[in-house]
Structure formats: C-alpha cells, structure tokens
C-alpha cells in the first residue's frame, strides 16, 4: 500500500534483584554486597513503617489531620533515599516518608505538617529539599528547574523527583520530562506505581502497558523495576543518578509496588477494591523479603528485630510528645512569610488577626 520503514524502536526492561522470598536474582547488586548499607536500609524501612502506623493511629484518635499512609511502599522510598547524595535535591509528593527520613527529616516535622502547621516543612538536614507537594504533578516542572540550575552552574548534583501513577496523567509530568530530555538535565524521575490513584486503578488512568514507557514520549531512557525490592530500587536509582551526574541526562524509573493502606485516613478503600487483591499484595510486601535476605547472610536476627522495634517505638513516642506539646503558631505566622517584608497595607490585617486570636484564646 505504501513504502514502510522503521523510524524508531524502543524496549522497556523490567529489573529485580530480590525475590519475594528474599532470594537474590541474577548477580549481586551494589547494596547486596554492602552489609552496612543493607542494614541501614532495612532499619529505615522498619522505622518508616512504625512511624506510619503511629501517624494513622494519631489521626484515628483525633490528634492529627488527614494522613496518607506509606504502608507497603517502603522499599521504593528508602531505596531511592539511599541512592541519593546529601547535596542532591529531593522533590516528593506526600507519601514518601522513608525518603524523608533518610534525608534526615525529623518525624516531629512530618507530624507537624500533617498536623496543620507550616513549621512541618522546616528540614534541618536537607535544607534545599522541597516540602510535600499536594497539587498532583506540579512538583515536576519545579524539579526540572532545580536540575536546570545545577546544569547552568556545572555542578555534579542531581534532582530526584517522585510522582504517582495517577500523577502521570497530569500534563505537568510530561512537560517536565520532555524538557529534561531536550536539555539533558540531571533529573531522575521515580514513578511510584502503587496501582491506585485513590479509587482509580492504573488501568483506568492510561492504556500504557507500563508507566516507564511514558518516557519514550520525551526521548528519555526508562526502566521498570520491582518497587518492593529495595535492592533493585537502590541499584537503578544509583545508576541513573550517576549517569545524570556525568551529564548523561535524565532517567525515568517506574517502581511497581502497592498501596496497602487506604489512600489517606479519610478514605475507605473497601468501597472500591477487594480484600483478595490487598491480601495477595501483602504477600509481596517489601520488609519481610529484605529481612529474610539479611537473616540468610547472618546480618539480622530476632534479637536485632526486637531491639530495632523498641528503638523506633521510643523515637516515635518522643516525636509524638514533641508534636503534641507544640503550641500552634501565633496568627502573625499568616503574615510573617508572605513576602520578605510585610506590605504596610497588611499591618492592620495582622493587628486584626492578633486581636481576635486573643479573644479566641
């Protein structure tokens, strides 16, 4: 009917290091040969899960606002954190507790944020990281901009940005990876495919068989990995960051995981997904497989587990106490950071707010 040649060809690879049973697949990964790192990653995953359970609990008892649980996604969050350097910059959505903790964000700050207090975004140890980003997709162009700054200055730094499966439907996601590809920006984008965007399954979100292939639109290399496998997440993220640091440009990584919890504490997932589905997802959850792997290597045991759990419980309790003991900001907090200097016209509004705060007590 017409001359037909091939203009372009693409392949999306799937990678995994650790089987759900904790067996190493293929050769060893960087982490698998680094006992200290393995233990740090596992400890951080447990820390995240224990904090997460407590946060959900605080909300249930009316002590915290709406909270989005990270249950089941710890391997993705921690694997990414472990692959980053301190001088890199992180852009998250709202669920990446494990990455925030790895970056040194206090549990106390995370509680403050979900507890309705802007001071929850004060990150002492990662001062350039962006706070949680609620408007889905909007973090993407900002991350590209930060990466552009690094490229303009010729720095060997990278930006790591997270987005969800639902987020890949927002135009901003595509605009940013397309720009990153066109300018070879040091940007690594991790698509956390936890299969659900509130009640919308990823199959309703897109006809794309993989989310990694969305990078083909931007001419950006992409890979899909087992997102419940901390080793492979750490491995591919490290490779991607290294290439970006060398000036090799962006990478998109899709991590296949599962949102074991409700979307947030205001959600009831039983309305739209089956108990069976959640059950079978539990069989793939990330902590147990890494623990088994560590135990096989003699790097972990029941005692260590007990000690860690106690340690985390203590840390979480302390953070909760500090959070609950923190009085809310004075109403001046609404005005103090509006602009570098409060415009004269707003002084009367600030005073008005003060007056009524006194009444409200």
């Amino acid at each position, binding site marked *: 009917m017409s001359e037909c040649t091939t203009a372009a060809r693409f392949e999306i690879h799937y990678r995994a290091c650790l089987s759900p049973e904790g067996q190493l697949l293929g050769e060893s990964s960087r982490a698998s040969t680094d006992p200290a790192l393995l233990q740090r990653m596992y400890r951080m995953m447990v820390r995240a899960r224990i904090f997460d359970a407590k946060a959900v609990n605080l909300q249930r008892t009316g002590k915290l606002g709406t909270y989005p649980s990270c249950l089941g996604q710890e391997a993705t969050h921690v694997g990414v954190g472990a692959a980053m350097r301190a001088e890199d910059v992180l852009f998250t959505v709202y669920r990446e507790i494990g990455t925030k903790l790895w970056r040194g964000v206090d549990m106390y700050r995370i509680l403050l944020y979900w507890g309705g207090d802007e001071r929850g975004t004060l990150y002492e140890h990662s001062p350039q990281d962006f706070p949680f980003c609620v408007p889905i997709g909007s973090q993407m162009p900002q991350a590209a901009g930060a990466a552009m700054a690094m490229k303009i200055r010729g720095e060997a730094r990278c930006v790591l940005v997270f987005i969800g499966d639902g987020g890949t439907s927002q135009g901003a996601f595509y605009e940013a990876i397309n720009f990153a590809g066109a300018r070879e920006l040091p940007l690594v984008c991790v698509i956390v495919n936890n299969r659900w965007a509130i009640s919308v399954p990823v199959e309703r979100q897109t006809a794309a068989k993989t989310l990694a292939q969305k990078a083909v639109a931007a001419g950006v290399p992409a890979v899909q990995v087992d997102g419940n496998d901390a080793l492979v997440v750490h491995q591919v993220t490290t490779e991607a960051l290294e290439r970006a640091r060398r000036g090799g440009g962006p990478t998109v990584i899709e991590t296949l995981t599962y949102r074991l919890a409700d979307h947030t504490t205001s959600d009831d997932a039983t309305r739209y997904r089956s108990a069976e589905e959640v059950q079978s997802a539990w069989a793939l959850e990330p902590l147990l497989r890494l623990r088994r792997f560590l135990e096989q290597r003699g790097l972990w045991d029941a005692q260590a587990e007990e000690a860690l759990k106690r340690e985390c419980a203590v840390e979480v309790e302390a953070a909760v106490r500090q959070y609950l003991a923190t009085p809310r900001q004075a109403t001046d907090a609404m005005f103090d950071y509006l602009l570098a200097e409060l415009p004269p016209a707003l002084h009367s509004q600030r005073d008005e707010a003060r007056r*009524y705060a006194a009444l409200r007590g």
Partner: protein
Amino acid sequence: MAKMTMVEAINMAHAWEMEHDRNVVVLGEDVGINGGVFRATVGLQQRFGSARVQDTPLAEGLIAGTAIGLAAQGIKPVAEIQFMGFIYPALDQIASHMARLRNRTRGRLTCPLVLRMPHGGGIHAPEHHSESLEALLCHHPGLRVVCPSSPARAYGLLLAAIRDPDPVMFLEPVRLYRFMRQEVADDGQALPIDSCFVLREGSDLTIVTWGAMTVETLKAAEQLSGEGISCEIIDVASLAPIDFDTILDSVVKTGRLLIVHEAARTCAVGAEIAATVSEHALYDLLAPIRRVTGYDTIMPLYRLEYDYIPSLARIVDGIRATLAE
C-alpha cells in the same frame, strides 16, 4: 419529605436530572464507584451505568476540556473538580474556551455544562484543600458562578445549573456538606440562578454574604437582635452575574452595608459589591461599607484556619462598627 444534608441534596439533584435527561453525564476524579471524596455522586454509577458516570484520569485541565467537547456535542456534563484549590490546571479551558465558545462562534457552538467543586475551608483538610477562589471565576465574563448555602438551595440551584444553557461553576461550601439536615422535596423544582436570597429581613443594616459564611452571619444577626439591632441578610448565591437590584434596594432601605466572605479580600467579589453599591447608592450610605473577609494571606494550614475564616466575633464587631457611624 426526607431530612437531608447538603451533600445528600446534591446527590439527589444529580439523580433527578439524570433520570429525566438522558444527556446528563457525570465525570471527574473518583466520582464513579467511590462516589466522590465527599460522596456527592455516590450510587450514581451503579444506577445510571459507567457510560454516564465516568472516572477520569487525574487531570483537571482534561476534565474541563472534555466537558467542553461533550457539551458542544449535545451531552450535558456535570463535572467535579475534587477541590477548588485544584481548579488552576483547568482555568485555561474555563477562561479561554468555556466562557468564550458561544461568543467566539456567534452562538454556533455553546457550552451548557456544570463544573462542581468543594469550596472554602473549616474541615481541617490538608494544604490546598480549603481555597475560596470564586473571584477568579467571577472576573471572567461568560460564566455563571453559583454557591448554595443550604441543602434545599443546593438542590434547586444545582438543577438550575444543569438546565442552564451556559457554563455554570457550582461552588459547594465544604463546611456545609454535613453541617445541618433540612427537609428537601425531590420534586425537580429548580431555583433561579440570577437572584439573591434574602435570608433575614431587617432595617438597621444590610449584610451581604454567601456560602458557608451565611451561618456565622445569621448567628451574629441573631445574637445582636437581642440588643434590638435588626440586620437584613442577603445570600448572594449567584456570584456571577450578580443580582444587584436586590442588594441595592436593601442598602437604600437600611443605609448601611457589611460584606462578609471567606476569600482573601483584595479584588474579591466583596470588592465588586462594595464598589458597585458605593457607585449607585453613595448618597444613601450612612456609614462606610465594611468588609469582613479572609485576610490577604495564604490560607493557613488547619491549625490556624479558624483564625483566617471570619469568625462570629469579627462579624459582630463589623456590624457594630458599621452601625456606630
């Protein structure tokens, strides 16, 4: 007649109109099996099928643009934006196209559709979930903007919105979704979307407000009535175009006007009302028009949201101050 909340009344209005107009289609994020994050569309997909009640991908610009294409093809979309704070990605479609399609095609193509969205704060929601952005919409000619303040008005105004030949932005005050139960007749009776509602008659001053702020405003009037102060309270309800006749008549009668709204003050709907009233009724004014509004700051996270949202005390003082002169 069943007593119901505003969110139930909104659900009932959807069902009535879908039952009586096969062209009505519901779309948005999580509006299907989940019934919407506030349950406004609960049960509709089961009842009317997944062709007429569709979850969309997560993209507000897509939702608004899709609604335009549907409407131009004769379908009547009732689309939900999950929270008003997420309207921004949809504004290009709303302002550049929805508001203009009739005008730019000389009436050849039109956009009869409804964009529903939760409005305002007060429910301890996360960041970006408590915005009051009606002014952005009201500044754009070609749109109707409606904001109900009770279950019955939500029912009647939503029916009117769906039946209207032009695009209607339907703002639903989150504080009122489950605030009170009221008897609402499921009779398919629409309410006018071109007039204010006088919620309380009075002679000493006029208070103009809408949405969730009607609650505190009514409380304030009630409280001061004990001191013999008689407030007339007007629920604007239709924020664009505004029924200024009702407002002006009242101000001419009382000689005093207080405007109460939750949105930031600058360039908000309250500014337009103050400007228009002072232009047309200057000589009837016995005192300056005052505005009790959200501050010109970012809506704070929830620990301070009730320091931002006009309180009963601020409204009471606003009334006293307006009467003092």
